[in-house]
């Protein structure tokens, strides 16, 4: 295929190679529509953490690609993911980010649905006599499975079980969930923003350590010397592993992979005040050390294809809005029932880097906007993801492993992308 034709092609096998992807992947609207169908409507998509729907009637609205859904816990404790679409004339039956309710009532004609999505009642039912069976007109329900409190849903009933899909990523999710410092991980709130760029620019970024000292220089300058050393990881022993199915892990700070280890290490100076506050809240010295070790999160970014990352101390969630617009959520995490000083410190650390006015995110956003703007230049061209390809090794778990600043994770994601975009069946 000639290079100029490639610009307009939607044949992914020509556009996604092992070491590079065609730049039209960021800007071709036809490809975007295909992605919504083949990627987002046909794989496991993260929708919520169980702490967000912890009680009977707690709900959260979410998006699967461009489709609005409701994540809700019913009276029996079962979590449902429901299409947010009245079965009568299509209106959403639930608005807002989250809340608690006994039922979902359509604002248009008053059809009422239970927490499990079942159609319970509707006004003036006599006109439906013999023509509408309520049992068949509940809110459409998606397949739902969870792992370690992370709730995923899919429109594809034939897809493999979630745990099979997560595969090699499960070990890393287990490690990530240790950051409650002895308490179950809980969502504390989130930042939400949009950037004018394609969703895959964000997908790549969470596995990109190479940009950190360049883009985040102003953040690094804003932290103390001790923390600067922690974040000086490009020359360290970090690495990237391809975990299969498009998932990858970028280990930046190997010492912070397992937060249950080295709990007895001395408390760093920068957390001395936190330690004092924890002691004031009645924590014994072992608890203090465990909480201090967990407060900054883990030393790795686990990138789960296609829409969520367990990123050091928070969940990064992406939602495609259009071919050149993407919504990002930075979900702050803490410990359920953990000392207030611990959760507050985690929130302050989160705000420092993340969100629309963090010391990190706006600079990422500038770089991503420039990628979207610059990538359309020229009739043809490629996005290079070949960094580190000549120095790959095999990890202890038998995975492809590259240097910390290699593009191993991007290659993993794009090969999965290629697989789902070219598969003949919807699987």
């Amino acid at each position, binding site marked *: 295929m000639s290079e100029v034709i490639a610009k307009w092609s939607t044949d992914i096998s020509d556009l996604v190679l092992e070491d590079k992807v065609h730049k039209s992947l960021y800007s071709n609207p036809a490809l975007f529509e295909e992605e919504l169908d083949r990627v987002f409507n046909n794989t496991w998509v993260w929708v919520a953490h169980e702490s967000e729907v912890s009680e009977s009637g707690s709900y959260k609205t979410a998006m699967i690609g461009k489709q609005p859904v409701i994540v809700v816990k019913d009276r029996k404790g079962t979590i449902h993911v429901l299409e947010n679409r009245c079965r009568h004339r299509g209106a959403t039956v639930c608005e807002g*980010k989250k809340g608690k309710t006994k039922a979902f009532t359509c604002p248009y004609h008053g059809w009422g649905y239970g927490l499990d999505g079942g159609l319970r009642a509707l006004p003036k039912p006599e006109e439906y006599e013999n023509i509408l069976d309520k049992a068949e007109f509940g809110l459409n329900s998606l397949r739902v499975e969870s792992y370690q409190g992370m709730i995923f849903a899919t429109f594809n009933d034939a897809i493999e079980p979630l745990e099979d899909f997560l595969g090699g990523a499960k070990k890393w999710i287990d490690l990530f969930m240790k950051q409650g410092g002895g308490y179950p991980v809980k969502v*504390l*709130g*989130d*930042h*939400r*923003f*949009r*950037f*004018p760029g394609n969703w895959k620019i964000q997908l790549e970024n969470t596995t990109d350590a190479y940009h950190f000292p360049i*883009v985040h*220089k*102003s*953040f690094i*300058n*804003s932290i103390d010397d001790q923390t600067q050393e922690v974040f000086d990881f490009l020359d360290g022993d970090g690495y990237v592993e391809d975990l299969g199915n498009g998932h990858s892990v970028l280990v930046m700070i190997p010492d912070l992979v397992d937060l249950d280890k080295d709990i007895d290490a001395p408390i760093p100076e920068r957390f001395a005040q936190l330690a004092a506050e924890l002691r004031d809240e009645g924590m014994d010295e072992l608890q203090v050390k465990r909480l201090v070790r967990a407060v900054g999160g883990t030393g790795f970014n686990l990138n789960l294809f296609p829409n969520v990352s367990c990123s050091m101390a928070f969940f990064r969630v992406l939602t495609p809005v259009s071919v050149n617009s993407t*919504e990002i959520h930075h979900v*702050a995490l803490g410990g359920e029932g953990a000392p*207030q000083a611990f*959760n*507050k410190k985690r*929130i*302050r650390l*989160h*705000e*420092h880097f993340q*969100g*629309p*006015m963090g*010391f990190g*995110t*706006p*600079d*990422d*956003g*500038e*770089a991503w*906007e420039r990628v979207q*703007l610059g990538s359309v230049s020229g009739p043809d061209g490629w996005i290079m993801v070949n960094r580190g390809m000549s120095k790959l090794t095999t990890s202890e778990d038998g995975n492809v492993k590259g240097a910390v600043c290699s593009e191993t994770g991007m290659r993993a994601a794009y090969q999965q992308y290629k697989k789902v975009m070219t598969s003949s069946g919807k699987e």
Partner: protein
Amino acid sequence: MNQINPQLTLAVTAFLNLEADMLDNKEYHDWLELWNDDGFYIVPVDHDVTDYSAAVNVAYDDKEMRELRVARLTSGDAVSTVGAEKTVRTVSGVRVLSEDNNLIAARYKYCLFENNKNGIRQFPATVEVKLSPLGDTFKIVEKVVKVMKSAQHLTTINYLF
């Protein structure tokens, strides 16, 4: 407070206009001087929160964080701020909510307009301030900027509100 104290409203408005003009003209170090040392600059995500310290905010800055933020905005190291043009801020509808000798609470309408490469972006907000009188001027004790859509989705922001 239903009674209007025109002189106080005028003085508060003049102070808030001064603050906005400093930010439009990137006089960030002068802006830092407007603050009480114990003051907090807050941009909440959820406008209905009562304890901002326990919530995730877009910004929750004590003195140290305000100084770090100004250092970031002025250092030239942050790629998002290097090309940031001057902004236009409007302040209107200032209402003094309460006053005593030590603290004045006021609320006003506010909009930040930004010339961004993707177009002119605007951030309408309701701002709540607490001011401490100092001679013929004030020090800011608390500024809470409730930006529209902060709970749904913003864009990245390369300025101070």
